[in-house]
């Protein structure tokens, strides 16, 4: 298969181990999956930026905590119920998400559609549960600095849930239409990787919002 | 406002430590500067001239250049030694600054406001505490422990001749230890941008002989002088009946406002409006009538009062020694 390097530059000398003046790339694939692809790097760039934002927001939480005499500042810690439920749904969504990813790499359009649909249903579920999470934070954003930072953390993650849900929805609709280029499967794969990020980023945020105030 | 102001003319041990470190660092930096630019100069002099058409010399791509390598490594090593020397000197100076003995120290609390300094002298005996503004007196040779707070935004307390600066941060308390060894008037100024009149948030630290200081402190502890003539009495009545007392305090009278400088001994101070104006009758009158003319944005409103009233008010305030 021609995705092997057409020539190994370091083994090529002036005498020309490769015939001809030019390096012909016509037979190379026109799209690739994973870290070989351009979109993967674009997605990872966004992940790095947003991951840093989460890290900074969590650092802010603990910075404010060292400043406060009591923590959480005179209010009960957030109820665990909805937060735990949502964590479980999100972790469960990794399953159809990864399945979709693998089916995308196999160019299996029918299953990709199915997988995305399952992900979308789960996505809708965790956005719904998120509403209850906000309602059981037990503090308002304008009560004190503790309230401000937990609302910010939860809000930041919710923005990611919404955009990820939106992206997936748009991509799902696109996958229902045609004609489709093969690189749309790369888009599906990148979207799935971003979904992983949104779920994994939730774990430290969950620990900060729900577990940290109990210790 | 007169007053010495220079970081390299120390009048106390803290500023002196810093000044010594400065001269050391300056010498070191000057040495590095001259050496590096010297090397560059020689390089530029010795290298032959060329044009864009001169064939490039690419031998270095295929052959190492041990001579240049040794020189660069040597220069980096020397620089590192210099950096370590500076680091050690810096840490040592930091230590020295922290070791100022606070035995028998005078405690002064300074609260920053937009744009003036509220000064409280502590005392073990609460009846002996007193307040003033924009002017600190300290005895020569005795350490001073300053407790710094802010009532609004971040300010920074800085008297270059005595010590480096320290921020006044809302919600926090910071401290600064200093001592004056030479008598004199040292100018200080807010060093953290604090709004419209950051430029005119100055103050004076007056270091004087211990007995002069004691005399001054005793005078400050007293309540304000009673008016001694009808004009002054009229001025006081105007002060107490008008809006002045909403913000200003005069000890010994019902005026107890805390939003603006304590005026109990206003006439004993060198300046008005945090170093903006010399403290004399003309300036005081102009200031009361239109503070915005001197400090645009200042919180004190203009007071356009009839001629006879302003005269009485100024006469009264000028009597508060």
């Amino acid at each position, binding site marked *: 298969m021609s995705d092997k390097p057409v020539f*190994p530059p370091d083994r090529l000398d002036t005498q020309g181990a490769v015939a001809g003046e030019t390096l012909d790339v016509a037979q190379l694939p026109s799209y690739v999956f994973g870290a070989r692809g351009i979109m993967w790097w674009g997605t990872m760039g966004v992940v790095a930026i947003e991951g*840093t934002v989460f890290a*900074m927001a969590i650092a802010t939480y603990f910075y404010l905590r060292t400043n406060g005499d009591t923590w959480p500042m005179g209010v009960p810690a957030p109820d665990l119920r909805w937060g735990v439920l949502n964590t479980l749904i999100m972790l469960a969504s990794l399953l159809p998400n990864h399945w979709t990813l693998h089916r995308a790499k196999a160019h299996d359009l029918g299953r990709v559609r199915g997988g995305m649909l399952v992900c979308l249903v789960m996505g809708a579920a965790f956005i719904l549960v998120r509403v209850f999470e906000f309602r059981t934070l037990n503090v308002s954003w304008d009560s004190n600095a503790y309230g401000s930072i937990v609302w910010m953390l939860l809000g930041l993650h919710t923005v990611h849930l919404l955009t990820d849900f939106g992206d997936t929805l748009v991509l799902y609709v696109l996958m229902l239409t045609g004609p489709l*280029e093969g690189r749309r499967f790369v888009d599906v794969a990148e979207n799935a990787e971003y979904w992983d990020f949104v779920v994994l980023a939730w774990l430290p945020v969950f620990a900060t919002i729900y577990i940290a105030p109990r210790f | 406002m007169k007053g010495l102001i220079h970081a390299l003319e120390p009048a106390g041990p803290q500023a002196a430590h810093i000044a010594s470190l400065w001269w050391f660092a300056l010498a070191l930096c000057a040495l590095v500067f001259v050496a*590096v630019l010297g*090397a*560059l100069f020689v390089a530029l002099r010795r290298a032959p001239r060329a044009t864009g058409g001169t064939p490039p010399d690419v031998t270095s791509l295929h052959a190492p250049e041990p001579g240049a390598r040794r020189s660069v490594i040597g220069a980096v090593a020397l*620089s590192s030694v210099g950096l370590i020397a500076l680091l050690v000197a810096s840490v040592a100076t930091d230590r020295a600054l922290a070791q100022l003995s606070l035995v028998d120290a005078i405690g002064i609390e300074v609260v920053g406001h937009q744009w003036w300094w509220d000064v409280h002298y502590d005392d073990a005996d609460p009846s002996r505490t007193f307040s003033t503004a924009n002017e600190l007196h300290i005895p020569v040779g005795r350490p001073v422990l300053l407790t710094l707070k802010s009532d609004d935004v971040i300010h920074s307390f800085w008297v270059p001749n005595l010590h480096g600066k320290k921020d006044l941060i809302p919600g926090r308390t910071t401290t600064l230890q200093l001592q004056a060894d030479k008598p004199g008037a040292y100018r200080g100024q807010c060093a953290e941008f604090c709004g419209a009149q950051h430029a005119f948030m100055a103050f004076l630290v007056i270091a004087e002989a211990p007995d002069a200081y004691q005399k001054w402190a005793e005078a400050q502890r007293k309540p304000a002088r009673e008016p001694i003539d009808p004009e002054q009495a009229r001025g006081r009545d105007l002060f107490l009946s008008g809006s002045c007392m909403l913000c200003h305090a005069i000890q010994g009278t019902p005026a107890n406002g805390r939003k603006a400088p304590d005026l109990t001994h206003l006439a004993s101070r060198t300046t008005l409006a945090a170093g903006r104006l010399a403290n004399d009758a003309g300036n005081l009158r102009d200031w009361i009538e239109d503070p915005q003319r001197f400090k645009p944005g200042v919180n004190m409103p203009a007071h356009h009062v009839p001629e006879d009233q302003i005269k009485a008010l100024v006469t009264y305030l000028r009597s508060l020694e």
Partner: protein
Amino acid sequence: MSATWDSTVNHQPLDRRDGATGATAATDELERTWSERPGLAGWICAVGHKSIGKRFIVTAFCFFVVAGLLAVAMRLQLARPDSKLIGPDLYNQIFTLHGTTMMFLFAVPVMQAMAVYLVPLMIGTRNSALPRMTAYGYWMYLFGGLMIFTAFAIDMSPDNGWFSYPPLAGPEYSSGKRSDFWAQLITFTEVSGLIVSVDLITTIFKLRAPGMTLARMPLFVWAMLVTAFMIIFAMPAVMLASTMLIMDRLVGTHFFNAAAGGDPLLWQHLFWFFGHPEVYFIFIPGLGFMSMIIATFARRPVFGRAAMVLSLIATAFFSFGLWVHHMFATNIPEVGKAFFTAMSMMIAIPTAVQIFCWIATLWKGRLHLRTPLYFILAFFFILLLGGLTGLILGAVPLDLQVHDTYFVVAHLHYVLIGGAVFPLFGAWYYWFPKITGRMMGERLGRWNFWLFFIGFNVAFYPMHHLGLAGMPRRVYTYGAETGWGPLNLLSTVGGAMIAVSVLLFIVNVVKSRRHGEPAGDNPWGAASLEWATASPPPACNFRAIPVVWSEEPLWEPLRRPTHVSGLAVDSREVVSTTVLDAQPDHRYHSPSPTPWPFIAAIATTVMFIASIFTPWAVVWGSIPIMIAMIAWFWPRAGETRKQLVLEKRP
């Protein structure tokens, strides 16, 4: 339908492919494929890195000039004591806007702009990896800048300094919308800066010409790679902080309100966690210019290439450990201070390594003394002085004296102008022939240089003395009794000289653009790939993508294969290579021109500005953005059919 993506149709006549020697029909078609569309619509739709790069550079230069004029206004006000020229309210807006513009709208963007233009040429490709994102980034940057100057025109521009410390910038002490405009400008510029960084990283990692291993990559490209990574990890801090500030002001959160458990120092930590690396991501591209220009004008490769690269990386790394040295005057614990002092000293070492390597290069080189090199040589004098005063500022006790005084004003201008602006002017003289096809005037160039160099020192050197003599920063005036008058006057004279020198630069640019001597492909006899193509470069950059065999490709003999063939000429195809050793990996279809980045940027601008006034704008303002983004992403049927012909499955 599901069969269409599976198409294996890949048989094309040879003249649909590039790289065939002498195929002029193919070459013409390649040029058509990569050209922007004509007219205003074409201008709005442009996604070519050269189009975006040029307008990015020109926009950044305009902001530089405007911010420079603000500096002139400040210098006039400070020229004599008790000056009544500018009142505190206006002065505070001016100094805030000067700093904010220089840092957020000039220094960082202009370096990225230079990279957007130069990097694809230097690494031998035809466009950047994410060109539509870059276009969006440019528009966001432009609209953000226009917003803040509109605010200035209506007396609503921020007045709390470019650092905007709460509580002064918070809801209680800054009423009105001035601080909100500042916070939103930050959002605009960060969106732009971050997007361009992701684009640069992806471009550099994936689109290098075959054979350009990381080890062979030009040092400017290295510098921009390091810078882009720094931006990605530093900018989120200030974005988060400015969001918190605007929320404190708009919806009553308490992040910085000490009375409700918040902390003003939290702002300082977040701001300087970004702010200190920021200095280095202005400075590191400057180091990249230095290395490129020195090699060309010393007629030899830069000495110690590996050390140079490692130094860039070390500088980036250490720069994240310095932020507290902006906060020595707060109540930071002593141990922390010692650590940050040590870090502040340590970061000097990688810069020292580079300075010594450059001196070694010049020492062993043959010098072609032209204007670009003059600007580069000024770096040694100015940056060195600024770096040394930086060491002084890193020492806690000295910092306590000179912090927030004119000493720091002197220091930071020595570092930023010496470390970034002088190399940048050198870079402009150096790459102007590539961008326009004409040389800049050498005589005017020398005048420009000497006036700038002398004017700079006359303007900023006295400020060291002013700082030691107790003059704080950010004062709109000072009393005559302070004795600061004469040196301030001198400084103003220097400021005027700088203004004249920049004017000469503009004259030189305007004149040379039309009447300059034609440059040819490689007027300086330089080694990197951007000089292997015509000046100005054709729309496709290279008629055939070069294959790289050396770290100085134009200085070493050609080896075979010399270039790539087999890319489509009727579609925007580039070759994507592996990250480390740049082996050909796949053909990447580069996005074509589209108006949607522009439209999406307008929608985002409306949302950002409206959110200054109501938090609900975040909700309803997102809808048009979403629509624009979908339209941007949605493939066009015609384009898809065309791509299906070229498609080849991995």
